[in-house]
């Protein structure tokens, strides 16, 4: 479904990056930065923290790479790091807002899609924010082309549980859509 990296090339690239090859590490970042940015943007519903969070996730990825035993599990592991970073960020923001009387002006960068699409994206992201983080994560991981087994590995549950949760998440999103219109 998605432009996933080639099945044979990715483990090899991960292995070279694990060995400390800087050009492989660079290639790995370049290959995943757009997918990661889309995932983080959809998870948070805001563009402003995307760069910082992506940078943090990629730094954690490079530091933790030597401990990744199976290079084939790179993708679910990376999205797990991204999910955790987004959840931590949301938690921190909630605390920050409790002690901030005036919300600072949003510094979201300009958008590059037409107005109609922009409104649809904003509406969709707002609906996604109304879903629990767990449901949102699954919908976005599915959108990123992760298999049920990969999602199970990334979230630390079983494939059957993921199947049920994903089904419920889709139903919830559909309900939200129905209520909106």
């Amino acid at each position: 479904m998605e432009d996933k990296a080639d099945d044979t090339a990715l483990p090899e690239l991960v292995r070279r990056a694990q060995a400390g090859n800087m050009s492989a590490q660079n290639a790995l970042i370049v290959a995943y930065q757009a997918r990661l940015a889309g995932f983080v943007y959809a998870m948070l519903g805001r563009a402003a923290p995307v760069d910082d969070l992506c940078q943090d996730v990629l730094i954690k990825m490079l530091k933790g790479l030597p401990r990744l035993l199976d290079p084939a599990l790179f993708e679910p592991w990376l999205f797990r790091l991204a999910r955790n970073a987004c959840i931590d960020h949301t938690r921190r923001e909630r605390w920050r807002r409790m002690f901030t009387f005036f919300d600072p002006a949003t510094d979201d960068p300009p958008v590059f899609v037409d107005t109609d699409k922009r409104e649809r994206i904003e509406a969709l992201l707002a609906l996604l924010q109304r879903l629990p983080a767990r449901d949102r994560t699954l919908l976005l991981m599915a959108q990123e082309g992760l298999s049920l087994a990969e999602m199970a590995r990334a979230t630390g549950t079983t494939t059957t549980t993921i199947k049920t949760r994903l089904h419920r998440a889709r139903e919830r999103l559909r309900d939200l859509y129905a209520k909106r219109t």
Partner: protein
Amino acid sequence: MQNEPELSALWPDIRKQGTAALRPHLAQRVLARVAAARDELSPQTAVLVGFGAVMACLALTLAVNSWREHRANDEALAQWSVVAAEGTKLGQEDTL
């Protein structure tokens, strides 16, 4: 994905928006940060180095104390030997 057609339809644009939020040269920034972190001591190494330094100070203090005690004992022993020798000498003179 037939259950959320809007999400699938808009996903490429969402990704585009997310990518547009990235500042330039993300890969270089990440690699530079990781390289800089490699030059710093890791928390575990810092704790080990600190612990090692404390243990070395403790060992040095114990060694100096031990040496000073030995020296004091040697001096006392030497003085005592002189006194004992003189005492023996006086005792012999008294007997005579």
